[in-house]
């Protein structure tokens, strides 16, 4: 009776205590990785989050300021103070907030702590999307035709690119500060608007321009590197289901990528990473045109929202490995050569109204029933009876499924969404439920304008749903009139139907 030897578990915790400089679902995700590694997680919270779920999942929690992000989650000083107070040895920034801020990464290292992410110099270089474009080009990776310097003034010289063009924030990412411009006449307004949003979101109004590739798919490659030069390429994700240039749904493998294209994408991703000093996690984003040509968009030097898709397909715990490589551990062959199996899809549950242009829908989450069972993973940041602060990103949860193949994954996602019940606020769940029945999505034929084209502001309310809603409200009003229901009224509807059928027979 011999025992198997397991080689990839750390013999002792990489750190004793890690501060998680984020909130919501990603803070909880990172804390779970900490706990599984034997690390004590420390939360930070603004006054708007004193009762938040991520605070209750930490061993220790540090207040970092008032609700405004600039005075709390975006404050380098407040976060560093919290880390010092708590005795943390490392900081995981999650995504968003300070995660790609090179000044923060430098300040963390300067304070003698470990920044769990790529080197500060790399954050700085790749944070300038224009510099990143130039670096990719120099490495022989195709980029979307466009400017290689910031757009000046009213940008009349952009006409040479030909319209439509896309304006992008040089300091940007995540779709913010992006504006599509269809003709020269719209350029002035779009530039002003893009600069305003860029300044508001990133504190830098520099924008550049790229020709619009359309139809295009957004396909990205996940990288994970250690401090010893080893680089794992953990497959691609297709993130083409977007609204406002922001992702709603991600899946792996991409239904649009064959083995030859996949090899090209992986090679390009390796080249982009090879051109900079790199370790930890990053994602190289590409546009893919109808002919399978790919164009470098940007490299995100942080954990992505959608990292779970890759975890399901590869079995590699991305967040645990971020922490372990940050502590100096080398990536083992099990990670470097991780096989990919099955198909994974993630849908993001935002508090927003897909029937009203995906406008934010803050409020109070009342009912909160999430799916479980085979092949379903939920990463949630809220629970029932949660007030949603209006100051932050309205992502409530991610529902992920994994199955043997894409049709089975879609069927599983449909089942999972049918088990999902959220009260109090409108969410994207209605959009996702529509999506899983869409023949174009089922066929894998969609591009980055799919949501705008196929969904718009959503289908008109159907006659069946209308009649069902009417029946539910009418009966709710009737039962409301009975202040303390008798057992006969609260019994199972099945019991009642059964009795009625028995009477009929």
């Amino acid at each position: 009776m011999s025992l198997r030897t397991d080689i990839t578990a750390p013999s002792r915790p990489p750190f004793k205590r890690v501060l998680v400089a984020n909130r919501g679902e990603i803070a909880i995700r990172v804390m779970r990785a900490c706990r599984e590694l034997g690390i004590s997680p420390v939360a930070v919270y603004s006054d708007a989050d004193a009762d938040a779920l991520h605070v209750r999942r930490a061993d220790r929690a540090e207040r970092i300021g008032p609700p405004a992000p600039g005075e709390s989650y975006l404050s380098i000083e407040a976060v560093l103070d919290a880390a010092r107070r708590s005795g943390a040895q490392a900081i995981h920034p999650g995504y968003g907030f300070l995660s790609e801020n090179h000044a923060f990464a430098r300040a963390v290292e300067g304070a003698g702590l470990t920044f769990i992410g790529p080197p500060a110099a790399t954050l700085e270089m790749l944070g300038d999307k224009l510099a990143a474009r130039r670096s990719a080009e120099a490495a022989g990776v195709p980029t979307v035709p466009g400017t290689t310097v910031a757009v000046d003034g009213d940008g009349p010289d952009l006409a040479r690119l030909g319209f439509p063009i896309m304006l992008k924030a040089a300091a940007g990412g995540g779709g913010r500060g992006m504006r599509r411009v269809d003709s020269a006449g719209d350029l002035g307004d779009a530039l002003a608007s893009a600069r305003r949003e860029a300044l508001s979101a990133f504190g830098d109004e520099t924008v550049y321009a790229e020709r619009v590739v359309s139809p295009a798919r957004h396909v990205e490659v996940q990288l994970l590197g250690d401090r010893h030069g080893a680089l794992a390429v953990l497959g691609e994700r297709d993130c083409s289901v977007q609204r406002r240039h922001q992702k709603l749904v991600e899946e792996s493998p991409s239904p649009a990528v064959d083995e030859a294209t996949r090899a090209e994408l992986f090679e390009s991703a390796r080249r982009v990473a090879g051109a900079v000093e790199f370790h930890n996690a990053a994602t190289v984003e590409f546009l893919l045109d109808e002919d399978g040509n790919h164009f470098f968009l940007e490299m995100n030097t942080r954990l992505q929202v959608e990292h779970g898709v890759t975890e399901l397909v590869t079995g590699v715990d991305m967040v645990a490995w971020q922490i372990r490589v940050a502590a100096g551990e080398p990536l083992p062959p099990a990670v470097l050569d991780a096989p990919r199996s099955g198909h994974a899809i993630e849908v993001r549950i935002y508090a927003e109204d897909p029937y009203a242009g995906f406008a934010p829908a803050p409020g109070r989450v009342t009912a909160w029933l999430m799916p479980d069972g085979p092949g379903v993973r939920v990463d949630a940041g809220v629970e029932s009876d949660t007030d949603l602060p209006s100051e932050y990103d309205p992502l409530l949860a991610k529902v992920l499924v994994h199955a043997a193949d894409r049709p089975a994954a879609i069927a599983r996602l449909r089942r999972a969404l049918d088990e999902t019940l959220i009260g109090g606020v409108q969410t994207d769940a209605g959009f996702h439920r529509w999506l899983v029945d869409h023949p174009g999505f089922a066929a894998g034929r969609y591009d980055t304008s799919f949501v705008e084209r196929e969904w718009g502001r959503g289908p008109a309310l159907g006659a069946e749903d209308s009649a069902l809603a009417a029946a539910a409200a009418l009966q709710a009003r009737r039962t409301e009139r009975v202040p303390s229901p008798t057992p006969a009224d609260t019994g199972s509807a099945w019991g009642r139907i059964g009795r009625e059928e028995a009477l009929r027979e």
Partner: protein
Amino acid sequence: MSETEVRIGGEAVEPADGWRLDWADHRNGTGLLVNGERVIPVVVEGGGSEWTVTIRGRRIPVTVRTWRERLMAEAETSARGRIAPVALKATLPGLVVAVRVAPGDEVGEGDPLLTIEAMKMQNEVRAPRAARVASVAVTAGQVVATGAELLTLE
């Protein structure tokens, strides 16, 4: 309650026949619609004449009115003027980042009036109909709460 009327989006709707609402948890409004052949999970929230039913992820506002409530609502409507001034209010708390109109401006339906940033997104407030701007109650840089008056159209 045979004279009770159910309306969705202003239209009278005939409630689906043969479906029964089975509460799973009365406190949070979760339940099932069942007809012996299918089940459809729902959330039913509200009270009195105003309800919201969530079906397949979509929140559907439903008005359930007795004949008495209908008569009262109709009387109220006819008492109101035809084209009353409209006060536009903030539907979310946020930061006013731009005001595009001034009192006296003529605007067309759908024209942008101002921009509010909330939940990290910039949201355009647009004119619900063609009108003249009567007054503007906010300035750029101001933080507004839900329900705060933004501007009035004549």
